[in-house]
């Protein structure tokens, strides 16, 4: 019954989305307030209906209702409750339902928080948002309905249990990875809808950017966290000792992130200086298009990926069609209408705007490079029929060098004035950061003389970003220049967005330190060990104490026991394991990790291990934790900056009165 209710709500949501797509857009065209006011109501209703649908499916998973095909395929009654719930989106149908739910959530949020938006803009935005909803709801109902019952599911023939969830997905980080990633992907739809609405209107101003930026920032934050969580999961669950593999599925989420980061910075220029309008609109379109492409690449399985799950090519074609329609349509509209957008403020090449333009060029070009590397195999196959893959060396060799000038430039940005900046002056103010990073480079050369010669420079780059961010805050509070009370007063009164920027840029620096550390100085040993044998790696002595079998709720586990000593003193126990899931007939690896600030000791147990002989892979991953710590700081930076919005409630209100005035004057 609840399943039918959910199914019904899903179809009803499609109907509401159709209304929300057409009436408000028509109203905006004819300037009919009645039609336009349908939009917020419809957006809220659509969200409620999809919530009902989603909860109905969740209910089926929680109560293990195996008459529903999706539950039967992906759940099992012995699974822990958390994975019954995460199983809702741990499969294709459910995850698409989550996708549209989040889409509707963002639509509803615009309806609720957008009270002060100009009517026409709001109606158009919600109509565009609804059109995306319509496309994906059609996709769900026609090709991937999560509410389908098992064929001929009469009570006596009901299956007693389900097929279980892929054990790799039965993991806490991966339980939250898809929702976070989707909030990021789908959140960019708001920027997209605003861009399309602006093109339809043929009018755009700083208020537009002030509206789009928080939404983009929120989406970007969650995408950052989602990608980071995926990387963290791959690190400890796949047992390869790596954290990023330049795999198509990873790239699929990374491209919208790069474009979104560029969008974040260009929207800043638009908000503050009324410049870069056309470019920002284009970037908003491209960012969401890349999100759609990410969905397509992951869903369709056209690319062989280390993260590949079984997928259905026919569904891929449907998503490809959706992607073509929205990207193609938006670009046509852009080509047709973008000349209407008049560009505002002029600026010199050396200025805050100029720095942000450089940021945008480098980010877009590196995004394009990732795009080429990811899709080249597809193109090659289409043209020649031959199959090939583009490996990590390609991305390291192309992406890395493009990031270096970008990261070098970051600390300069906040020191340059809007309109016309002074590069030499900025460099003088950055003397602290320059000094610290040079010192660190020299010290690293002295201490790590045997590693790659580039590595200390990389460490210096990370320190440069961190010190640069601190340097900026110190400069703004006039640290050591005025009395400490005065500095403190300035420190408190600094806008939160300044702290957000500094925190996020610090995060990038911390991440760079981690990446350089683990790339340059990782050490690895693969060997057979017998009970009582000791092996040393990176200053640790690792003693193999034997294996032990254990039975858990829904898997059997072989655990290897290792003792870690440093200088003869025991400091930790490692317990890497192999888990066998009888229901899914699958084995997973759990790495044993001893974390520390300087690096992780990381152990993986090989197959067919026993007390006499175990295959063991040991890694020492220096500084690796800083990678995720850095992304966390970036997320926090975004959050701090977002909290600043409330302090500026007055600004949009002022814009509203201006916007109200403009259409009257135009008529």
């Amino acid at each position, binding site marked *: 019954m609840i399943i039918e209710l959910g199914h019904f709500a899903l179809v009803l949501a499609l109907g509401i989305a159709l209304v929300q797509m057409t009436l408000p857009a028509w109203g905006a065209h004819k300037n009919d307030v009645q039609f336009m006011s349908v939009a917020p109501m419809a957006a809220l209703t659509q969200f409620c209906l999809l919530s009902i649908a989603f909860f109905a499916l969740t209910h089926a998973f929680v109560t293990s209702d195996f008459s529903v095909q999706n539950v039967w*395929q*992906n759940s099992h009654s012995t699974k822990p409750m958390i994975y019954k719930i995460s199983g809702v*989106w*741990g*499969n*294709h149908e459910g*995850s698409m339902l989550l996708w549209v739910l989040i889409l509707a959530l963002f639509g509803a949020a615009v309806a609720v928080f957008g009270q002060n938006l100009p009517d026409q803009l709001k109606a158009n935005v919600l109509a565009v948002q609804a059109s995306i909803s319509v496309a994906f709801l059609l996709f769900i109902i026609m090709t991937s309905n999560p509410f389908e019952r098992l064929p001929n599911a009469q009570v006596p023939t009901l299956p007693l249990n389900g*097929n279980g*969830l*892929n054990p790799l*997905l039965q993991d806490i980080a*991966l339980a939250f*990875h*898809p929702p976070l990633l989707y909030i990021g992907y789908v959140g960019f739809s708001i920027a997209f809808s605003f861009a399309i609405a602006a093109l339809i209107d043929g009018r755009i101003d700083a208020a537009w950017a002030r509206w789009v930026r928080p939404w983009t920032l929120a989406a970007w934050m969650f995408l950052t966290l989602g990608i980071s969580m995926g990387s963290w999961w791959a690190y400890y669950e*796949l*047992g390869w000792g790596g954290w990023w593999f330049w795999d198509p599925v990873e790239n699929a989420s990374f491209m919208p992130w790069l474009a979104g980061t560029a969008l974040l910075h260009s929207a800043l220029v638009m908000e503050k200086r009324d410049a870069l309008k056309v470019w920002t609109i284009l970037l908003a379109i491209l960012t969401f298009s890349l999100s759609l492409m990410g969905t397509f690449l*992951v869903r369709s*399985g056209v690319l*062989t990926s*280390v*993260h*590949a*799950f*079984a*997928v*259905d*090519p*026919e*569904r891929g074609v449907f998503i490809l069609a959706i992607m073509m329609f929205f990207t193609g349509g938006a670009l046509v509209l852009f080509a047709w209408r973008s000349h209407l957008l008049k560009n505002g403020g*002029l600026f*010199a*090449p050396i200025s805050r705007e100029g720095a942000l*333009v*450089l940021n945008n*060029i*480098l980010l877009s*070009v*590196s995004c*394009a*490079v990732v795009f080429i590397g990811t899709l080249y195999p597809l193109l090659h196959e289409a043209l020649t029929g*031959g*199959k*090939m*893959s*583009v490996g990590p*060396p*390609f991305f390291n*060799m*192309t992406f890395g*060098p493009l990031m270096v000038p970008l990261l070098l430039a970051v600390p300069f940005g906040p020191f340059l004035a809007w309109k016309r900046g002074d590069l030499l002056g900025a460099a003088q103010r950055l003397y602290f950061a320059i000094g610290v990073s040079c010192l660190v480079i020299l010290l690293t050369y002295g201490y790590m003389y045997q590693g790659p010669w580039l590595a200390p420079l990389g460490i210096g780059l990370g320190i440069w970003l961190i010190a640069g961010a601190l340097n900026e805050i110190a400069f703004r509070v006039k640290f050591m220049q005025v009395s400490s009370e005065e500095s403190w007063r300035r420190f408190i009164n600094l806008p939160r967005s300044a702290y957000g920027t500094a925190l996020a840029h610090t995060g990038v620096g911390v991440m760079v330190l981690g990446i350089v550390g683990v790339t340059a100085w990782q050490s690895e040993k*693969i*060997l*057979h060990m017998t009970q009582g044998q000791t092996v040393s790696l990176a200053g640790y002595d690792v003693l193999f104490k034997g294996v032990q079998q254990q039975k858990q709720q829904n898997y059997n586990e072989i655990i290897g026991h290792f003792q870690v000593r440093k200088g003869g003193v025991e400091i930790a126990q490692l317990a890497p394991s*192999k888990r066998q899931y009888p229901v899914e*007939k699958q084995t997973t*690896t759990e790495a044993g990790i001893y974390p520390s600030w300087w690096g992780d000791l990381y152990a993986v147990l*090989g*197959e067919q291990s026993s007390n006499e002989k175990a*295959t063991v*892979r040991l890694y020492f991953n220096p500084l690796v934790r800083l990678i995720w710590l850095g992304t966390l700081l970036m997320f926090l930076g975004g959050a701090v900056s977002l909290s600043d919005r409330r302090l500026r409630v007055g600004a949009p209100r002022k814009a509203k009165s201006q916007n109200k005035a403009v259409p009257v004057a135009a008529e």
Partner: protein
Amino acid sequence: MTRKQRRFILIATCLGILSFALGLILYAVNDSIAFFYSPTKVSELNIEPGTRFRLGGLVQEGSVKRGDNAHVQFVVTDTNQTITVNYKGILPDLFREGQGVVTEGRLSHEGIFVAVSVLSKHDENYVPREVVDALKEQGVWKGGGQKPGSDKGNANDY
């Protein structure tokens, strides 16, 4: 500075960065592209020893031998031709005899494929598309339970 000069600087910067990126791509592409071959293709094309490529097919039943210090040897077959693969490391969890596999590495002068990586998959039912196509070419693709996207095939994704 006039408007024209500003625009020139902007365009020059764009072009400079683009050509830098293009240069990097052209430089990197030679070294890091791996073509995919089945054992039949490898013998047909007479691949030079030392060329990096991906080899895919089925792991022959009964061919997996484990040596000292995590050395593994197995035979990859497309039922027409076979190639012996040497690998040092821990095999992915879903590596099984009789199932599809993709490995990346180089042929030695003795005709043995020295793998640097064995691709893992995340899903019991997933068969790399290349392997499916290679087996189809040999006319031995059985489809059914192994087919990507069939029945339970669509099950797990994230």
